[in-house]
């Protein structure tokens, strides 16, 4: 069964309630929810939960121990536990030694590990909360196939929440659509629900294959010139370089996409191009147009000098938040540049409107939804009008509405003469925006 609904409809809360992990102190509840005829907290272990973030659900250091964790908690005898561990790992197709370090696994492998851990508890119901949202295309397929195999071999009921309908629509028996105002909008076979409600759902941010989100109109662009160049560049954190030597140019009025599998060093490359990490070898060189007297190497620029030259938007917006209101957050950059008050206010107001944040101006940034936080983090970078904007996975885990807004915004920046560098494994996004692509292996 696939559960759909726009942001804020309570999909995750519903799944957490099914799994019996919603505490009494975390809000109010009405009505009843029964698993096997009992309250979910009484049937712990009958329901298994897999969540979106691969890193926060790995519990122990070794693969075998992590899968065994659930069995131990349920009081399963030792021999039986290890038999289940081996069976579960086989069922999800995770063929690694039991003592393999869990932090050495890829995102897709971690999600399958979590699924195996759930499976070892022999649940009748498995709930998955956006299990593929943080994965690259290969990881998405791995996890989906593992889930299907598990459903077929165990006969367990599967309930999954996901924005990207196409991943699951062919394999589920039933789709339920939740409304943001509470209640169920639609409930039925996938074909019926998608043809009846598809358009409506697409407008609310759900990815429906038949109703793709709109793509922006592009306009004439000015002549291009080089802004940044990677010269025999090798990047890495610490001493060791990831991947091979890179040579490419970043042009004005154009968008460059950086793609490649998880762990190839895409984020590291983005941070290096953004003047935040020192290259291991070679150089990131700024042209005279971009440097404007600040020197050739962005890594040696002052923090304030970066603002008008290269803006960087991190993968996790929370890493970049500095203040306690949305408005103050946008004022940080202009203030660091010592812009006159009126000019700063005008820029902030314009951005608030353009990114639909004006109603949230007084809100605490940490309380925003995922899509709102993403828009805010982009807006903070735009407030200082950098010539180059570097973004790390700007469409990660976003609903189709935020996706389409982000695309339109970046396309306009490029059309107006800026350069956009985006790390992404979202192929549709890359295809819609990028003029050139650097593929890391």
């Amino acid at each position: 069964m696939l559960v759909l609904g726009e942001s804020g409809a309570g999909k995750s809360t519903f799944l957490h309630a099914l799994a019996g992990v919603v505490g009494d102190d975390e809000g109010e509840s009405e009505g009843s929810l029964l698993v096997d005829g009992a309250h979910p907290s009484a049937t712990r272990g009958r329901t298994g939960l897999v969540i979106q973030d691969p890193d926060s659900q790995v519990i122990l250091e070794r693969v075998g121990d992590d899968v065994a964790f659930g069995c131990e908690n349920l009081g399963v005898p030792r021999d039986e536990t290890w038999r289940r561990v081996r069976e579960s790992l086989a069922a999800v197709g995770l063929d690694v030694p039991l003592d393999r370090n869990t932090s050495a696994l890829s995102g897709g492998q971690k999600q399958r590990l979590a699924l195996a851990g759930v499976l070892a508890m022999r649940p009748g119901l498995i709930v998955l909360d956006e299990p593929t949202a943080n994965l690259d295309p290969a990881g998405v397929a791995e996890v989906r196939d593992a889930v299907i195999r598990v459903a077929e071999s165990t006969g367990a009921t599967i309930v999954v929440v996901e924005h990207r309908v196409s991943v699951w629509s062919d394999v589920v028996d039933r789709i339920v659509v939740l409304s943001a105002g509470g209640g169920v909008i639609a409930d039925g076979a996938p074909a019926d629900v998608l043809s009846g409600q598809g358009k409506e759902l697409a407008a609310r941010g759900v990815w429906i294959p038949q109703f793709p989100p709109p793509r922006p109109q592009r306009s004439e662009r000015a002549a291009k010139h080089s802004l940044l160049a990677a010269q025999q560049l090798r990047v890495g954190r610490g001493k060791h370089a990831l991947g091979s030597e890179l040579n490419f140019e970043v042009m004005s009025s154009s968008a460059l996409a950086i793609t490649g599998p998880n762990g190839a060093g895409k984020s590291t490359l983005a941070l290096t191009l953004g003047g935040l990490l020192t290259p291991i070898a070679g150089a990131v060189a700024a042209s005279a147009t971009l440097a404007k007297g600040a020197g050739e190497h962005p890594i040696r620029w002052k923090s304030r000098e970066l603002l008008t030259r290269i803006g960087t938007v991190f993968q996790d917006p929370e890493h970049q938040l500095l203040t306690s209101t949305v408005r103050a957050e946008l004022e940080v950059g202009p203030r660091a540049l010592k812009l006159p008050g009126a000019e700063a206010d005008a820029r902030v107001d314009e951005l608030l409107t353009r990114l639909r944040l004006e109603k949230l101006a007084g809100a605490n940034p940490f309380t925003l939804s995922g899509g709102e936080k993403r828009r805010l983090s982009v807006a903070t970078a735009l407030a200082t009008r950098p010539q180059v904007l570097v973004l790390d996975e700007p469409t990660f885990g976003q609903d189709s509405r935020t996706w389409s807004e982000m695309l339109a915004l970046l396309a306009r920046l490029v059309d107006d003469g800026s350069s956009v560098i985006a790390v992404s494994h979202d192929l549709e996004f890359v295809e819609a925006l990028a003029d050139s692509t650097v593929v890391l292996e």
Partner: protein
Amino acid sequence: MIPIAAINPVAKLGAGVIVSLFLIVTIDWVSASTALVLELAIIALMGIEPRQFWLRTLPVWVAAPLTALTILLYGRYEGDVYFEFLLIRISDGSIELALATFLRVLAIGLPAVVLFISIDPTDFADGLAQRMRLPDRFVLGALAAVRMVGLFLDDWRSLELARRARGVADRGRFRRLAGQGFAFLVLSIRRGSKLSIAMEARGFGGDTPRTWARESRWGAAEWFTIVIGTLVGLTATVVAVLTGNWNSIVG
């Protein structure tokens, strides 16, 4: 060669604690040097790779002379004075005490580090819960938290880079660190609560008595480890008493 890695971590901890207890009740150079000689002999038998040994124990080698230097300059005033400047006074007494302290820091520090090199956190938690009977919620909670340290370090680095990207990293280092510390705390709490949901969803904290997939073994090797620790401590004390150097700090 002694297969030290296979010994139950609780036994290693126990042996380390026992040696330390014998050594902290006295401050003389004889007991410390006896213990140190015995320990170095045992460590040599363990067959630890020399590079790893020096690398891991480096902090102890740095700490020992620094502690001794402090005592040398400001320690007990007794016997002939060789050098005096303001509060600094180097005397027979302070030289003897400095030497004793230097040896003592080594004698307590080296085995502690060497024993802990080989401790696997998961095995240690198994030992604490199954052998020491510590509450399993507490032990496993702590174990899961230890595994998150790597994620916390990544968070801290990202926060630092993000501040440079936001244009606020040029000055006001201390105020910035305070703000960064707060943001770090918020992120850590979020990570912690996600982890606890994941653990709860796997039945952690339920009413069913927990079973253990890995048995924390306790056999001859573990008792032997404890006995060795006790022997080292006892020998050091006996030698010090016999040579008339033992001076208790108690009473």
